């Protein structure tokens, strides 16, 4: 019998496309996302690209993409399959609105099933901007975390990861399996080609009800108000560098 394939699990979230400027709804009870273009969270796309490159280098056998959302998220998983993932798993939570800890609990249950070598995901989703899920999964799984990765090198059951930290670049060495969250400069995701989109339709996409994984979501936080930040006062225009300096002196921003 063959050994368990060396598998990478990539978690992706469907979000409002980063080019869309969202607004608070007129009744201030939420964010207007109806009809907005939806995409794979850009950081998760980078995570998928990295997984594909690891497989292409021969350091993994299979790339599985997963999402925790609703059946509406299937198009984004199909895009991930078109990029090159081998199969997809959609955990139907019947809501788009799970808290990061519950997403992490679902991913921890998937990790039990899939036994991946690495779980790769974005450092944050550009809607909630929480930056929590990967770290929480690593805690629940009791495995290493390498967050904000800018380079990943694998060898002998370990990963050496360069991390983008405020002070510069920190390098850590983690034992696999591990969770890696991606920063922007890790790679440039590939474009999807038309033949790959057609091929992706044949790939496996399983839908798993959240209850089957034994996770019951809990609402810990309640969002009671949505507002837009006050706009900055519109400033003045100057017509030369000399006027610019004078304007700054006048405002007290320069002496």
């Amino acid at each position, binding site marked *: 019998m063959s050994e368990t394939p060396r598998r990478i699990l990539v978690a992706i979230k469907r979000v409002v496309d980063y080019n869309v400027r969202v607004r608070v709804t007129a009744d201030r009870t939420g964010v207007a996302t109806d009809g907005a273009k939806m995409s794979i969270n850009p950081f998760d796309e980078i995570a998928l690209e990295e997984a594909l490159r690891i497989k292409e280098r021969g350091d993994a056998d299979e790339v599985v993409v997963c999402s925790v959302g609703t059946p509406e998220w299937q198009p984004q998983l199909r895009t991930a399959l078109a990029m090159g993932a081998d199969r997809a798993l959609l955990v139907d939570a019947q809501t788009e609105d799970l*808290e990061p800890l519950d997403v992490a609990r679902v991913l921890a249950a998937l990790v039990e099933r899939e036994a991946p070598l690495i779980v790769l995901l974005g450092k944050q989703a550009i809607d909630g901007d929480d930056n929590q899920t990967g770290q929480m999964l690593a805690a629940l799984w009791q495995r290493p975390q390498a967050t*904000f990765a800018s380079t990943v090198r694998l060898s002998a059951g370990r990963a050496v990861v360069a991390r983008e930290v405020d002070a510069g*670049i920190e390098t850590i060495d983690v034992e696999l399996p591990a969770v890696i969250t991606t920063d922007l400069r890790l790679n440039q995701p590939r474009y999807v080609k038309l033949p790959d989109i057609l091929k992706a339709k044949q790939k496996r996409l399983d839908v798993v009800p959240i209850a089957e994984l034994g996770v019951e979501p809990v609402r810990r936080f309640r969002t009671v*108000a*949505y507002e837009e930040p006050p706009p900055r006062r519109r*400033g003045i225009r100057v017509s030369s560098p000399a006027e610019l300096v004078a304007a700054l002196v006048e*405002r007290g921003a320069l002496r």
Partner: protein
Amino acid sequence: MRALVVAEHDGRRIAESTAKCVACALEIAPGAVDIVVFSGPEQDALAAEAATLAGVSRVLRVIRDANGAPLAAVLAPQLAAVAERYTHVLGPSTTFGKDLMPRAAALLGVGQISDIMAVEAPHRFKRPIYAGNVIVTVEAEPEHVLVGTVRTASYRPVQEAATPAPIEDLSLDHVPVPEHTRFLSLETERSHRPDLQTAERVVAGGRAFGSAEGFELVTRLADALGAAVGASRAAVDAGFAPNDPQVGQTGKVIAPKLYIALGISGAIQHVTGIKDAGTIVAINKDPEAPIFDVADVGLVADVFDAVPALIDELKRRQ
């Protein structure tokens, strides 16, 4: 209410982010804010520095060989062990806090409120979502310990205390820590320029500079002003600027007194990183560039003409 702040440090000094977290924690639990300092045995002076922050009741010093490097996998179980005595546990929304706090929260079986920008009540907070385009008010249940990160750009650091807070040594040797994660190195860009995160003045450049050589104009103006250097994501992606000065939702969120954006269009994700600056200056040759919507002073000009002229003008005034 009793709040615990996790100190951030580089092994030598306590980071300013800690003093900002204390400011936030004091709004939640006035007179009941402790700091915990995790460090290696050679770094025992850090606790004394933390004790000088005004409003702090007590500093808990946790010294352990494994605590010499800031590894979340090592610190999180220890933090979770201390957290049970508090109603709130806060860390900075810097890469240190973002790495550590969610891991500790999950070990405690609780969620986290990220990027606290205002405290409305001990269990009601404001925080930004969608790159700061929406501000939400979030309520938490008081029966669970609240784990949160503090958006440092929203708080001013507390001052120095007249008398330092008492320091208590706390042994957490009974808390097992994993050995699966090793710290190898930290490469910092040491320069004579001020640090981007704490600088009073920042000069940042965007795609308009076209090359790393062109981008040197940004550093020349920064030096003329004694400012830190920043960059837009476009400039970093194009390879003109190194990684760590990126300003924006996905980079650093800063609040200098003066921010000068050179050849930066002003994408939403960039503007998010500078919204709290005192005065924003934009120089861009495109009069329609969105950066002008947030700029206090705007100059429509090519950066290759305007920046050298601006440097000359500043030199003339000295």
